[in-house]
C-alpha cells in the first residue's frame, strides 16, 4: 500500500509539467473557442458582455455554406489523389532493393525540409500567367491565352496534393513493407488477374496504412489556410480563410470562434469514424 502511494506521487511528479502546460495552453483555449462563439462582439474588436446565438445564426449565410461545401470537396479530392498516387509508390518502395529504397525515401523526404511557404510560393510562380506551365500548355494548344491556372480551386487541390503527398507515401510504404508479397503470387497462381490481385489482396493487406494516410491528408486539408490564401483567390477560399478574415480583416472574434467550432466538429467526425472502423475490423482478425 505504501509502495503504491509512493509510486503515485512519483507518477504525478513526472507527469505534471506536460499535463499542466497542455491543460493551460491546449484544453482551456479550446474551451474558450466554444465559449466565445456564444458571445457578442463589441465594436472595438473585442468580446462583449452577455450571451447570444447570433454568431451561430450568421453561419447559415449562403456564402459560408458555399465555402464549407468547397472545403469538403477540395479535401476529399486532394485526399483521393494523394492515396491513388501513394499506393503504387508504397508498393514499389517495398519491393525494390534496400539500396534503392534508401535513396528513393531520401529523395521523397528532402524537398520537405524546405519551408512550407517557400514550396507554395514556388507553385505560385509556376502557375503564374507568365510562368512556365501556362506557356507550355498554351504552346501545345491545350489551353487558351485567357485561361488562368492560378486563383481557383484546381490550383488549391494541386498544391495541397504537393504539400501532403510525402505524409501519405510514408504510412502506405510502412504498411506495404509488412505485407507478405507471396500472397500476391498465390493469388496469381489461383487465377487472379494482376489488377484483381492488387485490388483484392494487396489493398486490403495495407488497409491500416491507407487509413492513416487518409487522416494525414484529409484533416490538415480541412483546416488549410495558407494554400488557398496564396494560390486560391476568391474562387478557392476555404473555411480557414474565412476564420482568418474574421480575425485579421474585420476583427470579429466571436464569429471567428463560431466558424472554428464548425471546423473542430468536422475534423472530429472523420477521426472518430476511422477509430471506430479500425476497432471493428480488428476484432475478427485478433481471433485468428
Amino acid at each position: 500500500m505504501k509502495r503504491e502511494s509512493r509510486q503515485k506521487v512519483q507518477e504525478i511528479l513526472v507527469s505534471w509539467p506536460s499535463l499542466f502546460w497542455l491543460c493551460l495552453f491546449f484544453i482551456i483555449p479550446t474551451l474558450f473557442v466554444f465559449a466565445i462563439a456564444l458571445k457578442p462582439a463589441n465594436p472595438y474588436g473585442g468580446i462583449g458582455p452577455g450571451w447570444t446565438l447570433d454568431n451561430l445564426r450568421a453561419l447559415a449565410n449562403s456564402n459560408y455554406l458555399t465555402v464549407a461545401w468547397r472545403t469538403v470537396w477540395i479535401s476529399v479530392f486532394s485526399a483521393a489523389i494523394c492515396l491513388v498516387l501513394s499506393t503504387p509508390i508504397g508498393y514499389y518502395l517495398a519491393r525494390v532493393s534496400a539500396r534503392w529504397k534508401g535513396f528513393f525515401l531520401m529523395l521523397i523526404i528532402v524537398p520537405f525540409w524546405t519551408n512550407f511557404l517557400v514550396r507554395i510560393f514556388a507553385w505560385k510562380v509556376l502557375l503564374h500567367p507568365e510562368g512556365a506551365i501556362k506557356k507550355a500548355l498554351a504552346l501545345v494548344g491545350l489551353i487558351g491565352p485567357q485561361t488562368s491556372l492560378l486563383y481557383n480551386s484546381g490550383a488549391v487541390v494541386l498544391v495541397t496534393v504537393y504539400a501532403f503527398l510525402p505524409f501519405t507515401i510514408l504510412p502506405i510504404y510502412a504498411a506495404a513493407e509488412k505485407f507478405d508479397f507471396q500472397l500476391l503470387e498465390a493469388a496469381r497462381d489461383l487465377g487472379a488477374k494482376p489488377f484483381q490481385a492488387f485490388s483484392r489482396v494487396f489493398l486490403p493487406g495495407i488497409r491500416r496504412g491507407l487509413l492513416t494516410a487518409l487522416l494525414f491528408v484529409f484533416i490538415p486539408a480541412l483546416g488549410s489556410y495558407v494554400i488557398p490564401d496564396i494560390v486560391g483567390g476568391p474562387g478557392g477560399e476555404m473555411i480557414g480563410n474565412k476564420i482568418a478574415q474574421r480575425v485579421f480583416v474585420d476583427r470579429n472574434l466571436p464569429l471567428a470562434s463560431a466558424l472554428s467550432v464548425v471546423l473542430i466538429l468536422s475534423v472530429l467526425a472523420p477521426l472518430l469514424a476511422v477509430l471506430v472502423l479500425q476497432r471493428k475490423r480488428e476484432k475478427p482478425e485478433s481471433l485468428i
Partner: protein
Amino acid sequence: MRRSRWPFVVTIAVLLFFYLPIIILIVNSFNASRFESGWQGFSLMWYQRLFHEPEIWRAAKNSLLIAVCATAASLVIGTTAALALHRFARTRLQRFHFGLVYTPLVVPEILMGISLLMLFVAAGVELGLFTIFLAHVTFCISFVAMTVLARLQDFDEAVIEAARDLGAGWWVTTRRVLIPMLLPGLVAGALLAFTLSIDDFVITFFVAGPGSTTLPIRVYSMIKFGSPPLINALSTILLAVTFTAVAASQRLSRARR
C-alpha cells in the same frame, strides 16, 4: 511472374513533380530578369539586394531566438512527458495524458492558432515574442514526447535495474545511464522541435503582435506584397541552410555509430 512497370513510372513521375518547382525557384533566383519571363542572364543582384533589407535580418533574429528558447523548454517538458508515459503506462492518468499529448499532432494548425489567440485576448496578455514562444512550446511538446517515447520503448530496462543493483542512486542512474542511452532520442526531438519552430507560420501568425515579425511571417508578407525574385533568393538561402544542417546532423549521427 512479370512485374508491372506502373509503380516505377508513378514513382519517377511523382519525384519529378516534387523537384520541378524547387529547381525552377533556385534557377530563377540567379535570373537577371525582374518578371520571371524567360532567362535574361546570370546575376547575383537579388542576393545583393537581400543584404540591404534590415527587416529580414531582424525577423531572422526573432525566429532564431524563439526557436532556441522553445526547443529548450519543450525538450524538458516533452521528455518528462515521455518518461511518465513509458514508466507508468496503463494507469488511468497516463491514458488521459497520452490522449492529451497525441491530440495536438492531429489538430489543424489554424485551430491551435485561433484557440491560443482567444486565450491571450481573454486573459489580456499582450501579443508578441512571448506569446509566440508559449505557442511554439505547446506544439513542440507533443513532437518531442513522441520521439523520445519511441526511443524509450525499444530500450532495455534491465540496464537501469543493473545500475540500481550495483548501488547507483536515482541521480547517478539518470545522469550516467538514462541520459546517455536516451541521447539519440533527445537530439532527434530537439532537432524536430527546432525545425518546426523556425518553420511555423500559421500558429505564429495568429499570436504575433506588432514588432514580433518572424522569418516565415516576413516571407509571407513578401509573397503577398513583395517582389518575387527577392523571395527566390531568400528561399534559396534557406534551402542551402537546411540542407547543410541536415547533412551535418546525418554525418554526426553516422560518426557516433
